[in-house]
């Protein structure tokens, strides 16, 4: 059961990665994992660092939109992890940063980018 969840998650992230690349994003890290949390995809779009959370739902009617699952707690955590990432890469924190969500709806064959999650 647990493995199944992980497999589904990887599947969603793969779709999201291709989707972002199609939009012209340069993917620089996948599943960046730290003690305090994880960011699914880190990319660069022109000058901005883009931190992306991927959410997938198979049944929207039953569970609601994927993006609804990105709570304020998760958003705050993403900020912390993002700053940690930049620190580890030796990048100054005075750079353009964006936090985005990719919704994957496999049954509808759809993916959607939400550009401003704050």
């Amino acid at each position, binding site marked *: 059961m647990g493995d199944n969840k992980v497999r589904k998650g990887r599947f969603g992230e793969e779709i999201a990665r291709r989707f972002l690349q199609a939009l012209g994003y340069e993917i620089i890290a996948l599943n960046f994992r730290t003690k305090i949390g994880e960011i699914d995809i880190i990319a660069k779009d022109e000058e*901005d660092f883009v931190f992306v959370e991927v959410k997938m739902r198979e049944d929207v009617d039953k569970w609601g939109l994927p993006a609804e699952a990105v709570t304020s707690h998760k958003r705050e955590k993403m*900020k912390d992890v*993002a*700053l940690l990432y930049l620190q580890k890469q030796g990048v100054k*924190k*005075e*750079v*353009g*940063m*964006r*936090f985005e969500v990719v919704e994957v709806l496999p049954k509808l064959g759809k993916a959607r980018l939400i*550009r*401003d999650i*704050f």
Partner: protein
Amino acid sequence: MFARTYSGVIVGVDAHLVEVEADTSLGLPHFNVVGLPDASVQEARERVRSAIKNSGFDFPYNKRLTINLAPADIRKEGSFFDLSIAIGLLAATEQLDRGNLGDFVIIGELALEGTVRGVSGAFSIALMARRERKKLIIPNQNAEEVAFIEGVEAYPVSSLAETVAFLSGNIEISPVPFREMPKGDEVAYDVDFSDVKGQEHAKRALEVAAAGGHNVLLIGPPGAGKTMLAKRLPTILPPLSLEEALETTKVYSVAGLLSNNTPIVLQRPFRSPHHTISTPGLAGGGTVPRPGEISLAHNGVLFLDEFPEFRRDSLEVLRQPLEEGYVSISRAKLTITYPARFTLVAAMNPCPCGYFGDLAKACTCSPTQIHKYLAKISGPLLDRIDIHIEVPRIPQEKLLQETVGESSERIRKRVARAREIQARRFEGTNIHFNAHMNSRQIREFCPLSSEVKEVLRSAISKLDLSARAYDRIIKVARTIADLDGSENIEVYHIGEAIQYRALDRKFW
């Protein structure tokens, strides 16, 4: 990038200039407002974000946004910073040319779709803009309000997009044309003293009150016409002068009571709050400070029906405004002053059941009840009310008579004459009315002949009048003499004035 716009903040009834600094920098995305904003200003963030997006501009969501409202030591309240914050952000992200932004004071609340909503206090803001020699951008809904202020260039806008187009020089907006204030005597009231049948005694007392700026207490059974009389007092006061109209309009603007239909206050206000009113409701204040009823009655009449039923502490706050003409509200961080110069008309029943002393109906109250009822009004407060009169019920035959009483216009002319005499008398002093004379001024302006003194002395001892009544009677007598056009206070002036001390004589 950085940009600066200007807006205003209301403290009391006056506006102060506020610099709205907008800065965007790289870093963790965040939208922060500093400079002592209260909750309503914090919420501006959400309105500004949506309005910018929905007006077809880019909200810089990959940047760190800081808005500073200077001076940082004045608490910023209200929603009218929205527009200036949005304009500042657009300028800071170079979606708008920064060139002439410094020439404008910008106020307006934003709707999420990007339209601009009206705000309260635009009148005071416009006066401030004129003082600071800046032009003004205001919501359409406030256009009529600022039209009466000469020498301010105000541009009405209806949306964020329109404001940006105007500031970038893409469209022309014509400033609100200046409108001359209508003269006070062109203002018609919809009530008139000729509506009141009988009560000649009370009408005369109100005429004296209007002439000398005296406060009045009307005592009478239910249905005697106390409210009817009080409502007509503004109609015999001289019309508002330009200065007075501006002052009162300022209060109404700050209280958010002006609209495009009634953009300015031209009639003397008549306020009659219910006796259950809270102290802040009466005196002003509250979490978001607002002028109270006494300030809304500025330059007009405050009518307190069922006077003893008001909360004791509410009545006591009347003392300062009755004396000084303004009210100060102290809060933890600041003191706010609202103007509150009004004629107080209080009305009460003579006893809890209302029929004490009535000719037709018997009173059912015990002496203790009556005493307790009357004791609700404190001596110091009563001290500030010069004229007390009884308003008896009118017999039916008189009500049915077809006689028409004197019109307000004729009474107003007499009042105006008496006020001219006082204006000459008090030239060079800081008071305007007989009612405000202190004891030294009473001695100076109201010399009494020995004959008059004798009448007053015997009245006081015979009627058992209190000492505090003495000065009051002389002041009222002075006004009666002024109405009469008489240089000296004569015996019959004093005689009439003594009649206006009903409470000292009968009840207290």
